[in-house]
């Protein structure tokens, strides 16, 4: 601690240079924070997937339905503790750009299947009591400034007609990364009103008693319906979500490449700046050594200086990224959530320190290897 003023004085020696270097870190780490939030939004489904839930789809394709009769047959399989189902609606609210996912859900079982989504009891009761009732996620409510009781018109795209729903409840997520952009309405009303293919559902979600049993159950279920007119394809919720992320693979690659280039540039710029800073101070560093400071001390001094800049700049950038995401999703709700997690902040900070260390190490080694007599001779 008694050496702190050495570090601080040296950093304040060229304020503009220090500010610019810290600024580079801030920009890079701000970008890192935002990219991490976007990346997290894509991966969110995988992270939040329940380990004890399986998704049962039509083997032919995700958009082909399954018979409602499968519900009881699934429920009877040993190891299955709960079954629910839902349908994709794909309607348009006012304008196509206002996209958000709409699901027709089974009012009897859906809520218990997803304990991470919390709906107040009175609101759930109101939903059960209104055939045209709907439950919306709080992010979605916020996005369109809706209120409880609002009547929401949605134009059917797959299921034609003009549909109207009354907002009877709002769900929130237990975790910050839970997706609260969904719109739920009652499957029984949906099935009653639609004019074709009644008595089918989009997919089933089942809960299993033991997550370790998932692989076996996936097989059991698909065998159960093998060689029937409607075969199934079952997967864990995680694998299901991951298969979506894979389709986003290009975006992730893009994020990774941009991030790598930015950090590599940051490394070169900072390393160069520190090398110049050390060269300018050759004489002073030699004097420190003459006075009796060890080579290792000089090494540490230069590294601590670089890492201080990295920590201050990086911390600032991450802080700004956090503030930015607190203001909400810049796409206006397209992303299921927009959130810089504490883990992202920790790894961003670690990355900044690592770049600081890597950038400082060569100049620091040069400083520590400096021979006093040669350095003092140089004018």
């Amino acid at each position, binding site marked *: 601690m008694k050496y702190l003023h050495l570090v601080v004085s040296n950093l304040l020696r060229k304020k503009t240079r220090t500010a610019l270097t810290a600024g580079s870190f801030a920009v890079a780490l701000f970008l890192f924070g935002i990219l991490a939030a976007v990346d997290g939004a894509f991966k969110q489904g995988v992270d939040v997937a329940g380990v004890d839930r399986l998704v049962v789809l039509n083997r032919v394709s995700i958009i082909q339905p399954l018979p409602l009769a499968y519900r009881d047959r699934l429920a009877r399989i040993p190891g299955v503790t709960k079954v629910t189902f839902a349908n994709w609606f794909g309607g348009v609210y006012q304008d196509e750009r206002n996209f958000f996912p709409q699901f027709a859900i089974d009012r009897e079982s859906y809520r218990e299947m997803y304990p991470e989504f919390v709906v107040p009891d009175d609101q759930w009761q109101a939903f059960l009591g209104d055939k045209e009732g709907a439950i919306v996620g709080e992010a979605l409510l916020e996005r369109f400034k809706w209120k409880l009781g609002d009547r929401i018109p949605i134009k059917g795209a797959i299921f034609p007609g003009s549909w109207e729903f009354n907002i009877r409840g709002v769900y929130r997520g237990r975790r910050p990364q839970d997706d609260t952009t969904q719109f739920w309405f009652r499957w029984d009303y949906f099935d009653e009103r639609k004019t074709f293919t009644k008595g089918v559902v989009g997919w089933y979600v089942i809960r299993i008693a033991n997550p370790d049993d998932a692989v076996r159950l996936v097989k059991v279920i698909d065998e159960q319906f093998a060689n029937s007119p409607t075969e199934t394809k079952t997967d864990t919720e995680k694998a299901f979500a991951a298969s979506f992320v894979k389709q986003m693979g290009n975006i992730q690659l893009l994020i990774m490449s941009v991030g790598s280039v930015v950090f590599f540039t940051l490394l070169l710029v900072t390393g160069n700046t520190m090398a110049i800073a050390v060269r300018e101070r050759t004489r002073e560093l030699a004097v420190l050594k003459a006075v*009796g400071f060890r080579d290792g001390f000089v090494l540490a001094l230069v590294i601590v200086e670089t890492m201080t800049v990295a920590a201050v700049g990086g911390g600032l950038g991450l802080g700004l990224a956090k503030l930015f995401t607190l203001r909400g999703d810049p796409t206006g709700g397209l992303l299921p959530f927009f959130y810089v997690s504490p883990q992202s902040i920790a790894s961003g900070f670690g990355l900044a320190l690592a770049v600081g260390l890597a950038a400082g190490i060569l100049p620091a080694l040069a400083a520590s290897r400096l021979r*006093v007599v040669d350095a003092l001779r140089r004018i």
Partner: protein
Amino acid sequence: MVSIDGRGDGKSLIRARGLGKTYRRGGEEIHVLQGLNLDVDAGDFVAFMGPSGSGKTTLLNLLGGLDVPSAGSVTVAGDEITRMSGAKLTAWRARHVGFVFQMYNLIPVLTAFQNVELPLLLTGLSKAERHRHVETALAVVGLTDRMRHYPRQLSGGQEQRVGIARAIVADPTFLLCDEPTGDLDRKSADEVLDLLDRLVRDHGKTALMVTHDPLAAARARTVLHLEKGVLVESVAAGNAR
């Protein structure tokens, strides 16, 4: 007592025997010091003179443990420093040597106080103790009122006095001054020389000083000349007091 004949009386504080330093430049060998002997007793004030390039700085660097000789040995207060390893030598320097440079070599971003405090950071002294020592050293050089000033806010003479305060603050065994007045006007140079004089006479310090200036050399008790790699007595040996 100072002697250069390599016999010494065994009580000397600083003893150099057969000291040699050879530099290699290109394919050529430059023998700067060749079998130099020197004995300096505690409390002495010695001036080294000699033409530029004669090896004065080289000699001080060897005596101060900043460089290692090609031949011979240096012993200070019984420790043969020419046998010490790098880290040990660094620690030895911190305890025993106070350096004063021609270019002052203060750290520009530190105040006079902080510059003088530097050597004390290497000791186990508490903050309060360090404070006391720094104030004492600055009082000795007469700059107590410039404690919070940065080097650029000081005159050359004042900078050099801060440099001397830094050299003495940790109470080293001896001072090595390489042309301490080389960059100063007459008046400032005299002030610095008065100060060194006082440190030797009143504070019992041992000082070795390289200088080009005959008036500066005249302040020392002994003046030695570096010629062809060895030391010789001053022709004007009468200057020695």
